[in-house]
């Protein structure tokens, strides 16, 4: 096995593209309006260091982009740097020696002390070495509510999931889709995850996702989650969109009452010129259980055997995590910075809420870090099917538990 890995690594070395000095191709899948604006900040900062950011945006969700990125790395045509969700996805690539070790830069700059929460850096660490730069903290646990929509039905904007559920029929009557939901597995799975934390609680979630305890997955806590998901499914029945930002757009335009979506949705509100608290409201943990997962994006640097490229990679790594860039990027992206020592006074209402929770230690690890891509895909497929069919809560729960039981 190791031989194959080495072979691949050497193949990668031999045929690495000979980029010009200081020119790095960076692949990522940030293509929506808010995301593109945020990534432009990275490019600007990197270009300012005398290097050149060659943008390799890949449209579609991470699901579309990841295979392209990975097959290029494996195929011996690595890019200079790439976005990847950290966690288990990159493990095998690191194992195969295809990723650049960043430990030196990390130690020189003291990332260990900067990065908060430290779990983010842990996810980048493999056998004691650091292989990726976390760039932001994303949390899924948000519901976004449209003030317009609730104004139309003369109902105050709900303060938690239960109030929302109560108001949903009224929204429906007014011809408003209560819950906007892009019909893609990762969104549906994300929403489900959010409801799990809010309804089943962190302990049950941890048992299932971290410890892969199928019995808990079959238990009453999860049963309640699936029941709630069935409700949510009815709320989202008329949501005819696929992409998450189109769903967000429904909330922005008041066509939908709410959307369960990660904090990146905020970027879309911002671009649409909406103000948190005035035009929309965000509730962490569905307003029930104020806890945020600390997933996020990270950048990896595939091994390229060229000194200039290597230097550029290191320069990019330190640029990405530098305080100014963190602020500029995260403000646009709507995510939280990975370092606790930056000034985010410019942050809006929602980000501030997030920062407060973060400071209070209301954090949990992200699902990405605990489930393999394989298991993730299986769950996403299940969710995709569940949300678009009339599968009963018990059936869905049973199948969910089966997947957990066979996860590794």
């Amino acid at each position, binding site marked *: *096995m190791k031989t194959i890995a080495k072979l691949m690594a050497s193949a990668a070395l031999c045929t690495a593209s000979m980029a010009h000095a200081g020119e790095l191709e960076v692949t990522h899948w940030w293509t929506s309006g808010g995301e593109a604006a945020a990534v432009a900040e990275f490019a600007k900062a990197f270009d300012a260091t005398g290097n050149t950011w060659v943008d390799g945006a890949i449209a579609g969700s991470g699901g579309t982009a990841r295979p392209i990125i990975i097959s290029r790395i494996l195929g011996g045509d690595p890019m200079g740097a790439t976005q990847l969700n950290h966690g288990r996805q990159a493990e095998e690539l690191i194992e195969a020696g295809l990723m650049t070790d960043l430990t030196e830069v990390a130690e020189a700059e003291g990332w260990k002390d900067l990065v908060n929460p430290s779990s983010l850096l842990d996810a980048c660490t493999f056998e004691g070495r650091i292989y990726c730069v976390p760039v932001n903290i994303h949390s899924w646990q948000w519901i976004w509510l449209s003030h317009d929509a609730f104004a139309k039905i003369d109902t105050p904007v709900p303060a938690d999931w239960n109030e929302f559920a109560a108001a949903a029929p009224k929204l429906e009557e007014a011809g408003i889709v209560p819950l906007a939901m892009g019909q893609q*597995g990762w969104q549906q799975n994300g929403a489900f995850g959010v409801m799990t934390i809010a309804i089943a609680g962190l302990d049950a979630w941890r048992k299932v996702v971290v410890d892969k305890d199928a019995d808990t997955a079959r238990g009453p806590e999860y049963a309640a989650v699936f029941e709630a998901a069935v409700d949510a499914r009815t709320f989202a029945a008329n949501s005819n969109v*696929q992409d998450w930002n189109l769903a967000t757009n429904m909330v922005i335009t008041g066509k939908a009452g709410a959307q369960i979506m990660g904090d990146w949705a905020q970027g879309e509100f911002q671009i649409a010129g909406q103000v948190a608290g005035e035009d929309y409201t965000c509730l962490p943990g569905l307003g029930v259980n104020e806890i945020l997962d600390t997933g996020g994006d990270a950048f990896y640097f595939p091994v390229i055997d060229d000194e200039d490229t290597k230097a550029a990679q290191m320069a990019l790594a330190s640029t990405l995590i530098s305080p100014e860039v963190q602020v500029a990027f995260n403000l646009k992206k709507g995510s939280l910075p990975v370092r606790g020592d930056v000034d985010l006074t410019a942050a809006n209402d929602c980000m501030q809420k997030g920062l407060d929770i973060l400071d209070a230690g209301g954090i949990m690890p992200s699902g990405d870090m605990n489930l*393999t*891509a*394989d298991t993730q895909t299986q769950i996403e*497929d299940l969710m995709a*099917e569940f949300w*678009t*069919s009339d599968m009963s809560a018990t059936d869905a729960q049973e199948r969910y538990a089966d997947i957990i039981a066979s996860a590794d």
Partner: protein
Amino acid sequence: MSSSSNARKPSGLFRNLSAKIASVPMVLTALVVFVGGTAWTVLYSFTSSKLLPKTNFVGLDQYERLWSTRRWLISIENLAVYGFFSMIFTLVIGFTLAALLDRKIRGENVFRTIFLYPFALSFVVTGLAWQWILNPDLGVQSVVRSLGWESFTFNPLNDPDIVIYGILIAGLWQGTGLIMVIMLAGLRGIDEDIWKAARVDGIGTVKTYIRVIIPMMRPVFVTALVLIASGIIKIYDLVVAQTNGGPGIASEVPAKYVINYMFRAQNLGQGFAASTMMLVSVIVILIPWAYLEFGGKKRG
């Protein structure tokens, strides 16, 4: 009496040397890519390869998992539905159009050009065009509703139960022209005397087609069938562009499953197992065809 020849007896390997050298690309493609690649994939489908191909064999595990995965079953079901209707409609529409065009009509060229142009377009273009036409808020549904039929509902791309038919409409639009052309070529290849004989015998046009012409065109139908079938199994771009498998996983197809598992889910073994199943289904189609086509006339 005979002087010895100055020509050397060429040894077996160097006979037709130029031809052999010229055939190297073909031989390599056949052996390395087609045979080698296929064998490699089949072999690795018995391993638990994840992101990288590894030789830790796990027997039929990948296949067991494959056949207990909802998404694969849905993919297969979609393929069966799409395949069945695509087969029937493509043949029926293709033949009917060909027969209509064969009635010595005016403007045959114009009609043929219109029926066939979608075939020049890629599946991506086809998928996007139909995605737009079937858009529930702005497309056909809204147009019909605006005409006064308020309750009209035709929203296949967002209804998991009928989404595959939405793809079918686009697929038929793109592919029937080709079959029509093939059928037309077949019809044109039929002896004019057959028509004269049918006329003398007083057999009606439709009846002549059904009882005489279609049986005569058996080889053309078989070819068309194989063509449609092999196209169906490969269906990928259309789904990606039109629905990307959605809503949910309602319009997933095997080819997409393979690529998803190979690259996205980082479970190569599962992807290989799924692609091997696709291969098997092709073989199931090919063998009877090969038997029909070549089995009978081996001595020819």
